[in-house]
């Protein structure tokens, strides 16, 4: 029996080759899209999998009331917090501090490095983050000052081999004598907290005694609870027992805190500032892709269903004969489901090829490393099996029940199986659904593309073109910045040079400062350390006052420049001359505002421009910016490198292109938009394919009617209108459903940006028109073919 089903399935699929092709192309594209998105999802869900008790480990997040900004969530905490929580709350089993200040200066022998992924941390890191050693013993490893643990690759980079590293000392953050006591295994790439080098926390406390104060707020704290269910209790206790943790003086200013599950850090931390979150993802993007994946596969299934129903007319005779010969409904249901399983299987095989071919591009766009792995990824295999069964059932079940229900007597009597009213409505509703989805996606694509273009071309408030930043290495920043500036100033092609904390002008830290003579007027501000050349180099205009000047000696200690956002937050109409109490490392001099710069986007356009204050603080300089007038950036940077080596022979040359850095901030958005566009095109293509097949079958069914109409005098044009109208009306109806949903989804995407384009009424109209146009193109071929046919032939055929 099975062989018979198989045989008839294969032959009937071969006989209607174009129909089979439409189904296989549609389904394989749908399945391929689905598989890629599932791999993408798996990639994101695999983040931080190496952590042993992931469901019980939490990051402590603060909710601060920031003056001038409002509420903000930050993932930095006070130095003493972890120990206080561990000692004071029985639910807290273990805790760890992790302090990451970005790239750190390191010297190994004569060579200087600017080492990334360095953290000061506690002994408990080994337990809580599941770090294993390649060489050495974890016992009391990080309990003494000046002890470091290197990753295998770092040990090889510095000392040539893992074993050679053990027992050696390095200079870390300008301090000699850090002992490499152990080497840890390389950490997986899929983690929010990549670590190449662990430095014992006591080293940090010895060097920065203020870390012991509750006023410090600079490191991440992770706690392991006895049970995931203890979260509300612990959060409540932290709120109630602030007195236990904070000094009397600080209790009032104790921030609210909550516990974020470690498993959520990777995808659900968009709202959190000051965090280490490498390759951070966004659950909304992942979710959107998932929805699209399901929709695309659903659209492909709908093609299958619709074409099967339309084709049932042709297969009615077979059903009737089989029934007369003794087949019961079950036999027929199995048979038709078998066919859908064959088509789905073919499609899955084709989709695997498609996925394999398109994964490299997909990986490049999304900065992922997805692979098809049959052997090592059982979930993938189970997933494939699942897709096979679900898609086969989804697309085969209705046609199977529908066709097996046909009565042998009707079929054999010569009464052609007609589209019953239910199946007719169903077919139409499914087409409406398909095109609604396509139109929603078109709307989203139109609006997001406009937003991305807006973002890419928005005036950032400064000019990032032809500016590179050369990173200062190895400390002594004041002197080194001066040396480098002098060296570079005379180089061919250099227009301007300036020193700053970073190429965007800000240092990355944020602190509260207070207005002089008014203890209650405070401002949470970003700090920027810049010299007098920075604002002119970046072409950032002043709206009030003046720039720093090398000639005015008081500028070094007493002057401050603020941005408009800061002036607005403080309600200052005229800011020049206003004063702040001493802040930063200079605790003596009050700072007087000498100028207000126009707001510029020092971070990406996703974020609102926050208040910022700029001072001349040479020790805080981390970069020398160079504005050049050459066309060949690579050649120019090569010459920069030569100059660098003449000044700092043992220090690595590292540079950033400001333009590329800006571009990179929107790369994710642009790539996501590209992918959305691709998936939209796919869904449209599959819908159109379905419509193509459906029109063909409908026209075939109406051959006689068309013939009679022609005999009675119908013109080709009238007949074409008759055929196309049926489908175009459905697409138009789809548009009506799609517009509100499309506008809603587009708005959700725009909400991710602080500055957005607006949604226009014509976006929806344009989307509907595009869908109608594509539908018309699809239908037109069959329509004109049918309308031009010789009625004598068609009537004879009938």
């Amino acid at each position, binding site marked *: 029996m099975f062989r018979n089903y198989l*045989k008839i399935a294969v032959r009937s699929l071969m006989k209607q080759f174009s129909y089979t092709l439409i189904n296989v192309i549609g389904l394989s594209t749908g399945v391929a899209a689905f598989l890629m998105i599932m791999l993408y999802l798996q990639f994101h869900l695999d983040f931080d999998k190496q952590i042993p008790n992931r469901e019980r480990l939490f990051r402590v997040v603060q909710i601060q009331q920031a003056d001038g900004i409002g509420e903000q969530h930050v993932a930095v905490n006070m130095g003493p917090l972890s120990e206080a929580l561990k000692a004071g709350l029985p639910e807290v089993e273990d805790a760890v501090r992790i302090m990451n200040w970005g790239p750190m200066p390191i010297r190994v022998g004569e060579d200087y490095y600017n080492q990334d992924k360095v953290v000061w941390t506690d002994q408990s890191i080994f337990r809580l983050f599941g770090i294993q050693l390649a060489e050495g013993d974890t016992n009391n490893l990080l309990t003494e000052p000046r002890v470091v643990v290197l990753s295998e690759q770092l040990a090889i980079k510095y000392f040539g081999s893992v074993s050679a590293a053990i027992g050696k000392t390095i200079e870390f953050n300008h301090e000699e004598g850090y002992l490499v006591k152990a080497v840890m295994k390389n950490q997986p790439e899929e983690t929010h907290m990549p670590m190449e080098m662990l430095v014992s926390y006591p080293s940090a406390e010895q060097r920065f005694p203020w870390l012991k104060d509750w006023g410090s707020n600079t490191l991440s704290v992770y706690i392991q609870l006895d049970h995931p269910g203890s979260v509300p209790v612990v959060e409540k206790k932290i709120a109630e027992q602030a007195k236990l943790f904070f000094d009397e003086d600080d209790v009032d200013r104790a921030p609210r805190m909550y516990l974020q599950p470690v498993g959520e850090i990777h995808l659900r931390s968009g709202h959190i500032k000051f965090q280490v979150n490498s390759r951070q993802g966004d659950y909304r993007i992942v979710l959107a892709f998932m929805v699209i994946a399901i929709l695309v596969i659903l659209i492909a299934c709908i093609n299958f269903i619709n074409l099967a129903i339309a084709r049932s007319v042709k297969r009615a005779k*077979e059903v009737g004969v089989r029934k*007369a010969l003794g087949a019961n409904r079950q036999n027929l249901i199995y048979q038709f489901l078998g066919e859908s399983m064959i088509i789905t299987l073919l499609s899955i095989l084709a989709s695997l090829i498609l996925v394999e071919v398109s994964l490299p591009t997909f990986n490049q766009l999304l900065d992922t490393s997805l692979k098809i792995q049959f052997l090592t990824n059982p979930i993938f295999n189970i997933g494939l099996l699942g897709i096979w069964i679900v898609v086969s059932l989804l697309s085969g079940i209705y046609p199977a029940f529908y066709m097996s229900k046909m009565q042998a007597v009707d079929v054999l009597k010569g009464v052609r199986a007609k589209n019953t009213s239910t199946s007719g409505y169903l077919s139409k509703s499914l087409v409406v659904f398909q095109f609604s989805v396509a139109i929603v996606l078109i709307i989203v694509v139109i609006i997001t593309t406009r937003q991305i273009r807006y973002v890419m071309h928005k005036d950032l408030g400064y000019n990032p073109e032809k500016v590179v930043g050369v990173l200062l290495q190895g400390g002594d920043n004041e002197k080194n910045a001066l040396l480098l500036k002098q060296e570079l100033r005379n180089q061919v092609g250099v227009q301007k040079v300036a020193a700053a904390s970073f190429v965007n002008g800000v240092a990355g830290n944020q602190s509260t400062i207070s207005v002089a003579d008014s203890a209650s007027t405070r401002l949470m501000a970003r700090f920027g350390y810049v010299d007098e050349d920075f604002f002119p180099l970046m072409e950032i205009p002043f709206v009030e006052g003046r720039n720093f000047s090398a000639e005015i000696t008081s500028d070094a200690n007493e002057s401050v420049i603020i941005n408009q956002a800061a002036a607005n937050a403080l309600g200052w109409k005229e800011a020049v001359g206003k004063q702040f109490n001493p802040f930063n490392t200079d605790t003596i001099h009050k700072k007087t505002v000498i100028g207000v710069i126009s707001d510029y986007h020092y971070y990406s356009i996703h974020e609102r421009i926050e208040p910022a204050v700029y001072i001349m603080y040479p020790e805080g300089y981390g970069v020398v910016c160079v504005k050049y007038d050459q066309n060949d950036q690579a050649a120019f940077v090569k010459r920069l490198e030569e100059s660098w080596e003449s000044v700092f022979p043992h220090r690595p040359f590292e540079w950033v292109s400001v333009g590329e850095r800006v571009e990179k901030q929107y790369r994710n958005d642009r790539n996501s938009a590209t992918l959305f566009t691709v998936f939209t095109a796919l869904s449209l293509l599959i819908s159109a394919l379905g419509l193509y097949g459906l029109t063909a079958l409908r026209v075939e069914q109406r051959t006689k009617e068309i013939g009679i109409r022609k005999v009675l005098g119908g013109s080709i044009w009238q007949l074409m209108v008759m055929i196309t109208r049926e489908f175009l009306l459905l697409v138009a109806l789809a548009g009506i459903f799609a517009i509100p949903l499309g506008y809603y989804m587009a708005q959700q995407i725009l909400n991710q940006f602080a500055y957005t384009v607006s949604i226009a009424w014509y976006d929806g109209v344009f989307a509907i028109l595009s869908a109608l146009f594509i539908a018309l193109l699809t239908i037109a071929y069959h329509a004109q073919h049918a309308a031009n046919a010789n009625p004598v032939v068609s009537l004879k055929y009938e």
Partner: protein
Amino acid sequence: MIKAEKLTKIFRADEVETTALNEVSFEIKKGEFVAIMGPSGCGKSTLLNILGLLDNPTSGKYFFLDREVSGSTERQRANLRKENIGFVFQNFNLIDELTVSENVELPLIYLGMPTRERKKRVEEVLAQMQISHRHKHFPLQLSGGQQQRVAVARAVVAKPSLILADEPTGNLDSAHGEEVMNLLNELNVNGTTIIMVTHSQRDAEYSQRVIRLFDGQIINENIKKSIL
């Protein structure tokens, strides 16, 4: 074998009600060859469909092999059909995607017969119908007469006790028509009960009894003298 008691079939479409069969009663014994005749629309095919268990009557009783089946479910009817009834249709109704052998094999598959036995039976019956040389062809590659022979082979392969033939020669020329009628006659001689709907007086000559229908009612039953 078959007993119909006041069989009535009414078709309802919107507001129109058509009585296709109106209290038809008759009996057919095992081994009989009965022809049902009458003008178009008199209810012949409706009657045949009910007798073939493809359809249920609106009212009345239908005894098939001494069992009342008028209210049976589709599943029960399907089981009775595949074990006892073979069909021959005017338009052959072969499945175009299956070869001659595969078409003939189909009823045996639904009966769940083992493969080897199935193949043997198919070979035998194809030989009997003199169509063995065409067993690998598809229906559309055959002439009308050949197609109807395949259809008859399919109808008899499961050795049913009853064959229902709906205008079996309607689509054939006279030579092929005669061929098919001879086949049916032969089957009847060997003990198979045959009920045939036909327009053709010539075909009806092969039967032992003619039931004439008009407007859904039996107007007379002719029993041929030769049998009496």
